[in-house]
């Protein structure tokens, strides 16, 4: 199934990816972000907060946004 993945970490990435049926939010996070802790990100499916074990559906929009983003002067 195809879902829109938005990774707002670093340079920003937004594209459709193919995932297997039944893929959970946590599984996709580990694949896309990997090496980071989920609590350091705002994870939203279709712009709503979700549980890590929620299974993704075809056409879902999932975003990962870092909680801490340092500005500058």
């Amino acid at each position, binding site marked *: 199934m195809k879902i829109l993945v938005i990774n707002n970490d*670093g*340079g920003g990435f937004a*594209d459709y990816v193919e995932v297997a049926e039944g893929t959970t939010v946590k599984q996709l996070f580990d694949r896309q972000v990997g090496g980071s802790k989920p609590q350091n990100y705002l994870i939203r499916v279709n712009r709503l907060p979700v549980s890590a074990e929620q299974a993704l559906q075809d056409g879902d929009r999932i975003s990962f946004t870092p909680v*801490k*983003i340092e*500005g*500058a002067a």
Partner: protein
Amino acid sequence: MTMLSLRTMVRMAVRLQSRLPPSTEFPDFSPAIAAWQQLLQANARLEFVRQRAWPTAQLSVTSEVARAASLVRLRLEDELNICKAIKPARATATLRDVLADLQALGREFPELRIDLRLNQLSVVTEPINLEEVPLGRFEIVVRCDQLDEYRAYHVMALDPSPAASNSDTIHPHVQDGILCEGEGHHAIRAALSQGRLWDFFVLVRQVLQTYNGSSAFVSLERWHGSDCGDCGDLMSDDDITSCERCDSQICLDCSASCEDCGHSYCSECRGLCHNCDQYVCMACSRACTGCDHHFCQSCLQAGRCAACVEDLPPENSPDEHQDLASPEAPPPADAAIQPLRLGEVAVPA
């Protein structure tokens, strides 16, 4: 949560979607066509020299044709890569996406504001506290007709609590309404250019909620101002300097330069020359060996001040004393009028 009418949201969504920047780069084959023209000309020269059986010329023109052919291939490959990269579904948000973003923003933020007259879309954040410094609520404002411009948005303080030293700094990373995006720059620009407004506002909010002490317009430690270490007055950013000996922060009025070394010091690290009243630092001042007062180096002579030098008892030799004190003694009565000098001999009369 904001209660805006669906009609208002739809009208704003239509305006926003129509102003989204172009989706992606489109191919331009004119460089490849120009390279092809050069190849045709080089090939015509090759035909010319081949018909005349000029072997040397054939070699050089063949190299020229090969270079022109390589350039054609390079230009074509560039444009083919661009053709393959075009993906409109990723590049630009649809009207449905924009409307969904607006509805979600109304849930994500305490307040969503749509001003159709001013063509502005904005959200209001929760009150922001950074390291126990309350900064209040902020409004992130986007001009719908400037989405593709670098300054597409600005940040306003709704409960102003700016830095004491600079009223234009309403947040450690916001000055004159402009957020210095830092780590969030590329993601914020990508979200704006792709019309992902929900992502854009959330990203800006996360930057506002994060303090970067190593790069702030005004640090939170100095948010409520710095007091001069000497006079105690509150100092503005333009008025702060530091003592070059103890590093204490002082205002420009309290800073003074040493007469001898020229460096600037606070009142604790400098004194006054006992003679000329000029400022002199601890390192440069010297005590007179006679009176023990402190002086700058130019007011001391062999370790003594002028007053102590005058009080010195005379210590010079008698001859010297005489030469100095009395006029020249008259010569003996029988001295020759013109005595013999070196190289001379007396000639009898």
